[in-house]
């Protein structure tokens, strides 16, 4: 069973699988994001309190969710690589980090644009906002730690360990709105029982969430192929794969 598992994680296999998956991820992402944008921006009813300004939620919430999802992916891939010595895990972690950092940045920027009309300020030192900012700094730390080592294998392992240590921040970001009195509104979708949102607003949001996940998958696959090629550049299969 383990040999099967290791073959699955072998660089050429991962390279080919990622190449095969990329267009599918992109197609699904295009359809769901397209639907979510059109329905969310044009047809969903305006919020009774926030008017049309609430529509930024269709970008903000999925990016914030993805910022945590990408971090968890990165830390999990790093843990798998550290524990079972599956080198492709490091490539996944290295590929996921900049994407996650970008999603975090998008979540912070859209959130601050949303905060201006709603709270009257671009930035508040609120637990949710601060912990999301810490998440961005953690991404920076992981990325620069990986690059700081002359020996890339060592940098990979160090970055994976830091990623695992930083996982502690993920539940803090997620639960900060429940634990502390926060300016940020509580969760409206991810909760047990009925979501606190009209279905006409909810469907486009769920579509956007799913679309963003697929987009993350697609970009991850693309970056992963680059990482794998770079890491395996000495091996014969790469020379054959990139032969013109």
């Amino acid at each position, binding site marked *: 069973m383990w040999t099967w598992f290791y073959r699955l994680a072998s660089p050429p296999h991962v390279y080919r699988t990622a190449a095969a998956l990329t267009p599918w991820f992109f197609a699904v992402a295009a359809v769901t994001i397209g639907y979510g944008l059109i329905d969310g921006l044009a047809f969903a009813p305006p919020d009774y309190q926030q008017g049309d300004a609430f529509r930024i939620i269709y970008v903000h919430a999925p990016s914030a969710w993805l910022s945590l999802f990408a971090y968890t992916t990165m830390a999990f891939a790093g843990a798998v690589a550290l524990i079972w010595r599956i080198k492709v895990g490091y490539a996944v972690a290295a590929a996921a980090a900049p994407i996650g950092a970008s999603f975090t940045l998008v979540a912070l920027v859209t959130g601050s644009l949303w905060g201006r009309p709603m709270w009257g300020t671009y930035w508040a030192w609120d637990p949710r906002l*601060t912990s999301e900012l*810490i998440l961005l*700094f*953690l991404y*920076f*730390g992981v990325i*620069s*730690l990986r690059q*700081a*080592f002359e020996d890339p294998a*060592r940098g990979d*392992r*160090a970055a994976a*360990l*830091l990623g*695992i*240590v*930083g996982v*502690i*921040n993920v539940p*803090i970001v997620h639960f900060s709105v429940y634990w502390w009195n926060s300016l940020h509104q509580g969760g409206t979708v991810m909760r047990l029982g009925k979501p606190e949102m009209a279905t006409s607003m909810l469907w486009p949001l769920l579509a956007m969430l799913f679309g963003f996940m697929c987009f993350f998958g697609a970009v991850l696959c693309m970056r992963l192929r680059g990482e794998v090629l770079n890491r395996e550049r000495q091996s014969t299969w790469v020379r054959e794969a990139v032969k013109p």
Partner: protein
Amino acid sequence: MSIGAFPAMRLILRRELRLYFRRPDQLLQPLVFFLIVTTLFPLALSPRLSLLRDMAPGVLWVAALLSSLLSLETLFKADAEDGTLEQLALSGQSLGVIVIAKTLAHWLVSGVALVAMSPLVATALAIPTDAFPVMFASLALGTLTLSWLGAIGAGLTVGLRRGSVLLSLIVLPLAMPLLIFGASATDRAIGGESPAGALYFLGALCVFTTSLAPVAAAAALRITLE
């Protein structure tokens, strides 16, 4: 011949402390840095006492964080450079034991000294004497937590030539919750409110890092030493 974990820990601890006291400059520099940083704030903002009292817990904590970070850089560095760390790692003792001993020594030298220094700075920043016990407790718990977090960072960056900036980049985000609760405990004590909640949180963070950080720091050293 092999010895148990606790005697080994005691030996390393004693060696570390002796080394620190043989080189007092290493011990004093972070403390002087702590003093200078706290002096900068009244100069930069305004020497008004009411304002200083409001800012004092934050100033104290930021300065403590920075000065502790300064001394963390050397936690493993000297021993890694002259090969002592490798010998210790090969000694048959688990790396965790070595990390615990070295980090405790670091805390005893930097953290406890900082706590001892804090009344001086606190008086200059117009913190009332009633708040001192809470300030001592929060700083003691906080600096120990910080030493643990810093041990992870120092373990990860020990082999790097330009590790100091990276060390701050790694440790400071992790230390932010510490800063929030530490400063708010002192702040509440100054305002006459009960600081219990924040102190409990600091205690919880301290216990949490004490139990897990040695494992993480040992893993970090294993990666960077090899």
